[in-house]
């Protein structure tokens, strides 16, 4: 049985640094959650029968996630822009391919969160008129993201209509 989608992967990989970014995010979340449970474990004696195992389980799952998912994501996350469309793939357990035609694009932005700024990464956000249509391309080099945004803005201006 053929099981994969007959779409080719987009051309560009994201930055290698993105693996570090995903690892840090995952690690931070694990530390915060397990830390909260551990605090409850220390301060509230009566809850120990269940906070102890819960904290251990969260820590184990979080570490497994931190170890496996970032590189898995790096293998999957790809993107490209052409004169007709923006094409991106992402995800790990649930894979996600998105195509937004240039003629339907309303805004093109780049955003950088605090961790991204630290690591020198940038996110390209392409929105269409739909409430469910924004395409996020994470883990780009800031220069690439800005260049892509400028190029898209230029092409978009020459293409009339946004299907609203």
């Amino acid at each position, binding site marked *: *049985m*053929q*099981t*994969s*989608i*007959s*779409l*080719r992967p*987009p051309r560009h990989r994201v930055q290698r640094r993105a693996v570090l970014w995903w690892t840090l995010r995952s690690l931070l979340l694990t530390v915060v959650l397990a830390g909260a449970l551990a605090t409850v474990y220390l301060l509230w004696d009566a809850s120990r029968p269940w906070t102890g195992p819960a904290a251990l389980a969260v820590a184990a799952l979080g570490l497994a996630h931190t170890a496996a998912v970032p590189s898995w994501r790096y293998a999957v996350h790809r993107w490209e822009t*052409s004169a*007709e*469309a923006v*094409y991106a793939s992402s*995800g790990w*357990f*649930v*894979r*996600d*391919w*998105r*195509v*937004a*035609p240039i*003629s*339907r694009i309303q805004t093109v932005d780049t955003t950088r969160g605090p961790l991204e700024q630290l690591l020198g990464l940038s996110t390209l956000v392409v929105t*269409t*008129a*739909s*409430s*469910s*249509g924004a*395409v996020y391309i994470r883990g780009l080099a800031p220069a690439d993201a800005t260049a892509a945004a400028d190029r898209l803005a230029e092409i978009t201006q020459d293409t009339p209509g*946004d*299907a*609203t």
Partner: protein
Amino acid sequence: MTTTSEEPARPGAAAGPAAEPPADGPPVTAAPPAGDAAATAPDDPATPPEDPGTPWERLDARMIWVDALRVLLSMTPAAVALLIVRVEPTPGVLWPLAGVAAWGTLGAVLDVVRWLTTRYRVTGEYVERRTGLLVRTNRSVRRDRVRSVDADARLLQRLVGLRRVKVGAGQMNTAMESALVLDAVSKQAALALHDRLLGGGADQTERAAARTEQADDERVFAGLRWWWVFYNMFNVWAFLTAAGLLWGAWVTLGMFGVDSTGWVTSLADWESLGTPATVGVALAVTWLLGAAGLGVNFFTEHAHFRLMRIEGEKGTLLRTTQGLFKTREINRDDNRLRGAAISEPLLWRWMRMADTTVITTGLSMWSVGATILPRGPRRVARNVVARVLGADPSPLEAPLRRHPAAALRRRIGWALTVTASVTALLAWTAATTKLPHTFWWISGPALLAVSLALAAVGHRSLGHTFTGDYVVVRSGAVSRATSALQLRAVSGVRVRQSLFQRRLGLATVSLSTAAGLGGYQAVDLAAEEAAEFADRALPGGIAAFRAERGDG
């Protein structure tokens, strides 16, 4: 506050070319006091330019009559109770009556203040409204953003020929802002506003007059059949309706000193009937009462229902009018129509009933505006959709391509997972607490049967097809929705595949759009069809991104 007017505002030059005062009310000329204009910032980011040429108009003075009537009506219960029935004036009786009277009077006074302080006008580019005594508000809506002009009327307003007009713009809808409301203007003014804002002939008064009789250029698509009321009487809301009715009756009767509890108790010998029978009778009576209440409610809301297409200046409009006491008229711009959807919740599907909505831009799917037909027979719904969309063959009647058997396997997987985890949880609870073990022995198989049935139903409802300019998708086990979306409205595609779907050879394709729900999905397609589906659905296609044949 910055104005983008081309000529400087001249407070003294208000009485320019439009010196004639409006027909009713004192002459209200344009420029408001300078301090007023400076103190209030309009909530619209685009400030309308000063336009001293267009006179401001008042709401209709007949509002005052309605208010006077309202005060009288609010006094009536007290008068009837004290003077005619001669109820003992105890505090328990007096306070509610005084409350009703005070509420009515307060409402009327506020209404008069609102009439005194509200002005509105329609200029070349904007609809503007100024209102408020202590807090002045200026609302303005650009005319090219106006999407709908709806008129409705409460019973009293209708008696004196008044209409409440709501001017809606698409942006406001998404920004969760309310529409601009004019409450109330005369029937003629409402019609004229509608014609001016949504297009209408040059000769508005003539058109308005023609409309009141029966215009020829409108095509009626659907009317109400009285027996549809039965479709709308039977649902879970019946009990809630009955509870409201009974509580209201109990309070009202209590006010007049009637012992309703004692009356019900004396109706039958409840003790000899036993608890199960008593509960049964109570439920049956409540349900009957609730069903009757729902029926009456449906009838008053949808009486005189008509769905029609009428001519406007900028194109045709899809209009519904309905209501017995409170009339409501909703107009939808046909230029914004992108498709239609029929949804059939499980129980109603067996009765062959359906809800009908249109998919349009600039109109929230959850607003009443999207619904174009009361819940009624599916056959009628399909017919109406075919005529509204004007597509032949009708997209919603096209045979759908079924989704592969693997989709059924995925659903059976969900059913087994849910049943197993719920049963395991119950078994664990039974082992550690006093819950009898028979509980999960019974609930397990029952849950299994229901979830497997839902899995089969869910799989049967999956489908998709392309017909003419439309893509049609159908899904939903409990509430099956069939949506036909115009291909030109698709603004992006998204293919999703989880690891489980990958093992089963399935994928879900979502089409994003600016209209309706914002996204419509073909759930659990065969994986090898996903790219083909996306390619056909997206304008311009995705040929550039497809893998070579045999490239797996």
